[in-house]
């Protein structure tokens, strides 16, 4: 007998279930390509367990998106005020359609990722492109024929829009309802993309920081209208506040310990250097037909080839990754230096570049992230307040930000001694 549901084992969610027509999306080339894209890029060079791929993360995001959708659209919980601004929550037929849209948007939300989930998209893609724009195009064009076979058929642009969200699909208008649905996946505070990657990455990396009680948190999510902005957004019931605090703390620790680890950051930079030198015209293609062959396996093959090649530049760039001869950090921005000069790390980078060779110095600056700690919380009496009023923790959570300067291992000692003598003068500039 033909199976109605397909079950896939998952280390975080136990089983992820898909219907027959959803399975066709899973089996498509753009989704299967994600089996060969590391979720955390080259992080496995420092955390050996971090070999998981975008594929299983996408399945996890779909699973969580369905759970969150069911919780936040439960009509029993909806006030008249919510029903007025979001009439969709009262229409069972429409809800079933939208649930399907959200599941597929969640499954496809990462299909435009570059190899190694590389973040240097400004450097490695033509102007105006990022992975979200590729994702949008692949969902709406490449997978266009699949959506028509769903019953009822799904509109490709809707799936694409919900997957990418208003921040990246700036050319499109989002209704309030579409904004809420997109928030389920991409939301800053409770987006399931974030919930899944924190849980999954911490499991594979082998750190406990990313764990939190996501079951409790999801059960308390709710569409709320706060007095301050008068618009619906996803918030929580007060019983979920500790779960939300744990999520935001997990995010902070994971960023500081894993995502912004100084060695991970320099490997990203080395990969960017290699790709700029190796790719035709230094850029990835944007059309899926050409992009699809660019998986991590393809790039790793090129790195290995060039490790043994006689071409000096590519050989040197590949060697830094393959033989783990990464540049060494000689400076990290700290509050004392920042107090003296808020361009401290840039000035130190510039000074090192002019004292030594520019090619021997690398600079990484990742601006502040994780700012949104304010979200609505519903009290037991129905009053909606801001999370910052309820929580002793959230307001004190620092914003994550790093700035590093590295040098070639051959000049590490020399650069460090030079910097210890000249640092104060540089910061006076």
């Amino acid at each position, binding site marked *: 007998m033909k199976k109605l549901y397909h079950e896939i084992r998952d280390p975080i969610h136990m089983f992820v279930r898909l219907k027959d027509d959803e399975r066709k999306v899973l089996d498509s080339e753009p989704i299967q390509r994600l089996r060969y894209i590391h979720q955390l890029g080259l992080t496995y060079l420092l955390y050996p367990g971090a070999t998981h791929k975008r594929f299983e993360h996408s399945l996890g995001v779909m699973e969580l998106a369905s759970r969150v959708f069911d919780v936040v659209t439960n009509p029993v919980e909806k006030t008249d005020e919510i029903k007025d*601004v979001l009439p969709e929550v009262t229409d069972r037929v429409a809800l079933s359609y939208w649930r399907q849209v959200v599941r597929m948007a969640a499954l496809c939300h990462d299909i435009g990722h570059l190899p190694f989930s590389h973040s240097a998209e400004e450097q490695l893609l033509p102007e105006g492109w990022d992975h979200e724009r590729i994702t949008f195009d692949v969902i709406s064009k490449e997978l266009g024929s699949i959506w028509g076979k769903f019953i009822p058929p799904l509109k490709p642009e809707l799936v694409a829009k919900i997957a990418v969200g208003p921040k990246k699909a700036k050319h499109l208008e989002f209704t309030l309802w579409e904004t809420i649905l997109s928030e389920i996946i991409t939301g800053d505070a409770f987006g399931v993309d974030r919930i899944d990657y924190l849980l999954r990455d911490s499991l594979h990396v082998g750190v406990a920081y990313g764990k939190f009680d996501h079951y409790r948190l999801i059960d308390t999510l709710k569409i709320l209208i706060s007095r301050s902005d008068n618009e619906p957004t996803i918030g929580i019931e007060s019983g979920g506040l500790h779960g939300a605090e744990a999520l935001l703390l997990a995010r902070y620790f994971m960023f500081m310990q894993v995502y912004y680890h100084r060695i991970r950051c320099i490997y990203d930079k080395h990969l960017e250097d290699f790709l700029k030198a190796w790719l035709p015209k230094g850029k990835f293609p944007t059309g899926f037909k050409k992009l699809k062959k660019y998986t991590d396996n393809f790039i790793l093959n090129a790195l290995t080839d060039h490790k043994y090649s006689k071409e000096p530049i590519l050989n040197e760039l590949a060697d830094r990754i393959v033989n783990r001869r990464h540049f060494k950090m000689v400076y990290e921005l700290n509050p004392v230096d920042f107090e003296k000069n808020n361009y401290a790390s840039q000035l130190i980078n510039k000074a090192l570049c002019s004292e030594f060779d520019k090619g021997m110095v690398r600079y990484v600056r990742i*601006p*502040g992230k994780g700012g949104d700690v304010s979200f609505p919380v519903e009290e037991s009496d129905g009053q909606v307040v801001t999370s910052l*009023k309820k929580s002793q923790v959230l307001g004190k959570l620092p914003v994550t930000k790093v700035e590093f300067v590295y040098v070639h291992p051959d000049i590490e000692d020399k650069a460090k001694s030079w910097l210890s003598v000249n640092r104060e003068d540089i910061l006076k500039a």
Partner: protein
Amino acid sequence: MERNQRYALILTQAREMLNKGSWCGETHLQKAVYFLKEVFRAPIDFEYILYKYGPFSFELRDELTEMRACSLFDLMVKEAGYGPSYVPTPKGGEFLEKHQGTISDNLQSIDEISEILSDKGVKELEGMATALWIIRNEKAVGQDLDAITKKVTKYKPQINADDARKSAELTLQIISDANKSM
């Protein structure tokens, strides 16, 4: 506009709005900077889209986060039901002292826009900024008050026709006054 100039401009905008009694939450800052850009032609390159609370810039949101990371802003909660205010820290104040000269061309515009918007609540700001977005992006409406009002209620169904009209009127007046003074 260079990073320190942008920081100085945003900090000054917040300081002036707070001095004039504004709540100065993120929505207030978002809309004030939008008016500064679109009406007073301040050289700010934040891109705005029509979002949940009217015109909204994700770039400005990221910049505010970065400014918190640099300890230039603190979030302060005043009343339970409302979102936090953006308050310049003592370090933000020192930063402004050092960089005041870099935004001298925009000081008068910041003062004017703070004067107009500081006593407005989020709902009014949403209506006014949406009206401005329509005027700037939908050329067909021109300066036609009825057409702008209709569009505001189309994009923001939660704003009733009377409030939308008031917002549109006020916005047209601000544009007209700014054009005279520039």
